[in-house]
């Protein structure tokens, strides 16, 4: 029983890493209608900024705040000067541009700070607490709580505020949004900035666990995208639940289904996506896009 609970809790903890990144992807998608593949790279760059501040004597919390502000500005600048040129064109082109950005940002991080692993200080202590025979690390609990808080805030932003509604309106139909007087350009910049700021939080949360390297988020990004598709692009709650589901099922399948084991566990989330997409193409929590003719 202890092992089962341990695997379950570890799965939630790994899932929270994917969830942090997935939330940022959802935010950009809700604000611009795009999937931003550079999200992982931007989170890594933000984590480097925080790490650089800490190495120069800035307290950790302050360093993370600086990295969030830096990221917000970076996101807004990227939207204004890079992405805007592609926003009215083919969405596929814009997505390819984000892939290019990912490569570029990763390269810049490597160039500035080398590819060596850097130790990023953790916000939470390395202690553990014992619950029902399982050791749960305080860091996992802390990460999970922060993720839940962000998820709730985002959900509230999109559902309960005028600003969130405006962001969604711009994403769904920029032309109509402009006709109804919404400042489309500024809203798009704000959307990218917010997502990048959120990515910075994700970076600071996972960097202690993965250790900071330019490619730190590469594998996590694949799982985050899986969580986004599984949970539904329009639902912050959905992607977090999906990310946890992926983390937990992967762990349990590896140990309790002998046929799968550790060799095939990587396939578990993708089989899951396959099944879900056949039954519910919009994802577990996503809304169906309806087009009135």
């Amino acid at each position: 029983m202890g092992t089962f609970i341990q695997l379950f809790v570890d799965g939630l903890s790994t899932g929270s890493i994917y969830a942090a990144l997935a939330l940022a992807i959802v935010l950009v998608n809700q604000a611009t209608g795009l999937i931003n593949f550079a999200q992982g790279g931007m989170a890594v760059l933000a984590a480097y900024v925080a790490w650089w501040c800490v190495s120069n004597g800035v307290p950790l919390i302050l360093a993370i705040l600086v990295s969030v502000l830096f990221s917000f500005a970076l996101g807004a600048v990227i939207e204004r000067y890079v992405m805007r040129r592609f926003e009215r064109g083919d969405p596929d082109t814009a997505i390819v541009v984000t892939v290019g950005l990912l490569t570029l940002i990763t390269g810049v991080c490597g160039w500035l700070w080398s590819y060596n692993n850097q130790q990023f200080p953790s916000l939470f202590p390395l202690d553990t607490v014992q619950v029902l025979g399982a050791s749960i690390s305080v860091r996992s609990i802390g990460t999970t709580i922060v993720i839940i808080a962000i998820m709730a805030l985002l959900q509230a932003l999109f559902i309960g505020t005028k600003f969130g509604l405006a962001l969604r309106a711009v994403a769904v139909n920029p032309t109509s949004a402009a006709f109804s007087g919404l400042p489309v350009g500024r809203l798009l910049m704000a959307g990218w900035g917010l997502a990048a700021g959120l990515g910075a939080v994700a970076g600071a949360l996972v960097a202690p666990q993965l250790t900071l390297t330019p490619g730190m988020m590469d594998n996590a990004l694949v799982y985050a995208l899986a969580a986004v598709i599984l949970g539904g692009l329009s639902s912050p709650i959905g992607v977090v639940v999906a990310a946890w589901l992926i983390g937990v099922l992967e762990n349990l399948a590896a140990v309790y289904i002998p046929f799968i084991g550790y060799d095939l566990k990587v396939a578990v989330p993708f089989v899951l996506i396959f099944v879900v997409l056949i039954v519910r193409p919009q994802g577990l929590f996503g809304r169906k896009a309806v087009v009135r003719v």
Partner: protein
Amino acid sequence: MNMRKRTRAVLGVVALTSAIALTLAGCSRGGGGDATAGAASPGITDDSITLGITTPLSGATAGPGTCTVAGVTAYFGAVNAAGGVTFGDGKTRKVDIKALDDAYDPQKAKANYDQLKDSVFAMTAGLGTPTNRAYREAAIADKVPQVLVMTGDPLFSNQQESPWQLGFVPIYQNEGEAFGKLLASSSGTHKVAILSQNDDYGEGYVEGFKEGINGASNVEVVKELTYEATDTSVDAQLTELAASGADVFFNAMSITPLVISSLQKAQQLNWLPSWFLPSNTSSPGAILQPGGATAFPGVYTVAFAQSASAPDFATSKDGEQFLADLKQYANYPDVPAFPHCIWSYQLGAVLQQAFEKMTAPTRDDFMTQLRSISGFQAPFMLEGTAVDTTKDGLPAVSSVLVQKYNGKGYATAKSFG
């Protein structure tokens, strides 16, 4: 108009013919090292010799990859500054190094090799099994030496299979076996849990370890699991292994962040076995300190070279010189966290041995001389280990010593416990 068309056609034919002629010329020149007797091979003149390296300088493996270039560049930088290497044919040559980035991508490694093969005398020092394998067959066909490469894959040291290759670092099996023998020779009984990378690397270590404990009645492997090199977490494996109650954990892992998180996870699970770690993922500064390794009764690794990140290294005379060379000639200002800088500095010394014996400036003679070095004590080699290139099936260095972590650096472990 007609005139112009004809001129264009003629020009086209001329251009095509020139292109073909150039390609053919390139082919015949680029045919590789089978220079006729007496004629110099490509990449060597009367006053210089050029070596090629393809290794990861970007991407996840860039840390150790950059180190492999830095060590050998520093070594020959100092040698060149002192005048160069006096070869066996009486000529003194400077050693030039051309290093290209393959980002640990086999296809890029092959492309780099194709780019370098006509201008370099030999390929050397490149890090990585898949990348070295990617151009191995081409190097054999072109008769281009691919020597003292940084991979524990035994294939590179098999002269029948790989006539133009030689590995430098001990093969995985050597390292695994050293752990197994140390454990088998201890007085107590031991239960061992193993976590290994699901490829040749992990399999090699496990095979060697089992060879080492073969016939020992006091050692039992109670649980064996694997992980993929792309995994972001091995928490589930550690949870399962901890439940086995093993008192020794062999973590045959090549991914730095995963080793750190394994050390942390085991402590969180309150599982405190003795650890065996491969030589390339046991750095005191980069892995053991952030992982909190002092919590365990013993962390062991195998080594043949001193560790540059051990505290007394920088204050020793040789260590000081090494770090200064690294800074001056290789633009590497930090104390290296990876052992690869020292390893490739040593392989520079081994290459120099071979150069000094060469009586003809040919790749053939180089291979013959390189394979005739034995009992050579390269800089920073631990006492009891030596370079021996004469044994078929083994890399240049195959003798290793088990080391125990003492909270700062490593000391040779005579016995387990």
